[in-house]
């Protein structure tokens, strides 16, 4: 376990420093614009980092059900988990391309699943959307 401040607390410290001390000192409009993007990006990271693993595990569960896959033991390593979810999403894409989601109840389930995932992504990338 790492000591306080946590990773997110450190990111927030950097954000406060940039927004409070660096931005007011920037005279160049183009740099100020890019600094606003940088602050926005740090905000995304601070929102996404704490929930990433929980969200990946939930997405894995949802994909297992949606794709009706065997249930192996969940990977412990977050990188393996990430790779698993990526591959399962490839399988989902293939099934959509093959027409399995063109109509019928499975289409509704796919739409509901994707709505859930996209809203979770937006909570990280742009909660005001």
């Amino acid at each position: 376990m790492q000591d306080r401040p946590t990773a997110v607390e450190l990111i927030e410290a950097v954000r406060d420093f940039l927004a409070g001390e660096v931005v007011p000192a920037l005279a160049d409009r183009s740099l100020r614009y890019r600094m606003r993007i940088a602050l926005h990006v740090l905000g995304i990271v601070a929102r996404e980092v704490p929930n990433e693993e929980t969200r990946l595990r939930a997405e894995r569960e949802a994909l297992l059900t949606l794709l009706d896959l065997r249930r192996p033991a969940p990977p412990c390593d977050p990188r393996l988990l990430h790779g698993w979810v990526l591959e399962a999403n490839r399988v989902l894409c293939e099934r959509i391309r093959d027409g399995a989601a063109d109509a019928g109840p499975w289409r509704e389930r796919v739409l509901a699943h994707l709505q859930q995932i996209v809203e979770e992504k937006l909570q990280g990338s742009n909660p005001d959307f």
Partner: protein
Amino acid sequence: MGVSPGAAVERSEDRLREGLERFIARRSGAPAAVVGWARLPGGTLRDAWGLDARIDAGPLAGSHRLVYLQDRGAGPLESRLRREDEFRVLSVMHAAGVRAPRPYWHVPRDDPEGLGSGLILERVDGEAVGRRILEDPAFEAVRPRVLEQMGEELAKIHAVPCDAVPGLPAPPEGKGAAEAGLDDVERTLREVEEPHPALELALRWLRPRMPPPRPPVVSHGDYRLGNVVVHPSEGLRAVLDWELVHLADPGEDLAWVCIRFWQGVDQPGRRGLGPKQRFLDGYAKVAGWRLAPEMIVYWEMFANLRWAVITLRQARRHLTGRERSLELASIGRRCAEVEWELLRLIRAT
């Protein structure tokens, strides 16, 4: 002895300014001076400087308010026009009476002044930042008119004959413009190699609904709020950013303006410049035809999908190391917003 980064930046700006002075003198064939100079907010692909130039003799004698757009890094993508072609497009559009900035010079990559490839254009007064046009009270009176003007101006662009600018990217022989557009978007999505189920659903929705082939038009390719200069009393003054011009179905441009992301037209829960119909009416008035409502739905789905794959491709430019850029990297996080919109459109049909 340390040199502050500020001083280094100033020196390189001085060199650039002096280089531009020599360039303008050489190309105008007369003594020239840059009398005003300011860095402007550029785009994701280029840096911009505003310059006031004084040319002392010859056909261009007088004062000129200019902008120098300098390619950043690798320059335009393969999918974009070469700068000399963009310059030709601007010349044709300007001559056809389209409100495009008057093009002055194309700066080639190997120019002896070492300026770096780019364009020198007329600097048009007004506001291009969409957020300010939407929110600044100074634009309140002109806002209702802008959408109509954007429709009228797009019809003027589409009226320029396809062969007026030779060599524009065009649908392959024997393939309709709509099909070529969809193939293009699908190819880009495959190249990204990241699974995006929502985008696959949109592709499945689009294929069987593809409109029948119609003759292509000169499509601006990025026609939207953010690429137009608006004046507080006159409204639309110029259409910018012509590097994505290609031959396409007119529906591409018509719907691009209307997608949620650009905030140009009113959306459920979000105000834009006004109702979509006002833009479409402006177009119909000048073009003499209008897109059937079911075709607008098709093209809006297409426009959103196209924007989604562009966000992915922009992020790849950063990720592959070809052009490290915070702005490009952050665009990758925009894809989810477009996926949300695509899912909404799919559910609505």
